[in-house]
């Protein structure tokens, strides 16, 4: 019941987000406006308890949600075939650049005191 209530909150906030984004011609997609609204709504225990139940489930299976779009690669096989090597180079290089810049910069910016917020080595699994 709590999860159902949580899902309803997510959908209601997403709907309000869509209405606001279109009505006010915001440059943001509706779900992003919904995210901002939820950020405020979470201060309210009634919303928090129900959203927590469904958010952990949804975000825990986030990778499943990308499968339908991912299968869409098959529709664009001709384009990927035509520009395949160049596209692969662009995607791999830019992803590595993005990962490297973010990780190195954040590590450099963080004060050393940060290292005691969580016990190290909770998981030894390979990344």
């Amino acid at each position, binding site marked *: 019941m709590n999860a159902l209530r949580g899902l309803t909150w997510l959908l209601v906030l997403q709907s309000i987000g869509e209405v606001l984004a279109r009505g006010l011609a915001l440059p943001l*997609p509706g779900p992003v406006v919904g995210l901002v609204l939820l950020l405020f709504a979470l201060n309210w225990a009634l919303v928090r308890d129900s959203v927590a139940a469904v958010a952990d489930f949804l975000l825990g299976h986030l990778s499943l*949600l990308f499968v339908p779009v991912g299968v869409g690669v098959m529709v664009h096989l001709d384009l990927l075939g035509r520009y395949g090597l160049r596209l692969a180079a662009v995607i791999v290089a*830019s992803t590595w*650049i993005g990962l490297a810049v973010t990780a190195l910069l954040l590590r450099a*910016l963080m004060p050393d005191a940060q290292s005691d917020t969580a016990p190290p080595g*909770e*998981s030894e699994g390979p990344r």
Partner: protein
Amino acid sequence: MNEFVQLWVYLSSTPLFGLTATLVVYLLAQALYVRAGQAAWANPVLWSVVALAATLTATGTAYPTYFSGAQFIHFLLGPAVVALAWPLWQRRAALRAHGARFVIAALAGGTAAAVSAVTLAWALGLPADVMLSLAPKSVTAPVAMGVADKIGGVPALAAVFAVLTGMVGALSGKYLFDALGIGTDATGWMARGFALGTAAHGIGAARALQVNADAGAWAALALGLQVLLAAVLIPLVAGWF
């Protein structure tokens, strides 16, 4: 035999097929991933996509037919984006203490990914619509589609590029971080998770979550921040050209 063919033709054209096939294949891929010791090469999204695309091609099922069922899963991306407020809210103390640091890292990383993608695509002579579809690829698929649409890219292509980007991050992130000397202490996991959420969005975040709970939480935080920043900034920047 003929009856079987008729049954297949009927079943494969109902939404039931796309939905069921997606869940069954994903659960199998997930089981394989666990059996492989959660090795990066066994990424469940990668193998689900390969297996489903191969099945559709082998059975002559059109992608729109498949998607009529799979859209019920695809639809959940919207509520999932809204749900990203939850990890952001949970980490609000860290956000308050280090907010500027997180925003700077997310902005720099997201900008580096988008600018290097567009610059490289331009240097390699890729067409303009492909180039613009590459710009939002570090953002999670549904947002990438919305952004691509606004700046003159192709939404479907942007979604595919976003998925491929997520896979590259999930598959190779560990090796890149090891090579860069990012450790596996608390700050190291924070940097790894945050970078995956920033540059490899939901698929990278899902990978981070499976490897280390702490890294997963930072990845989800980065994902939420990245979605906010990219949705605001990419159309603004694209408007200048």
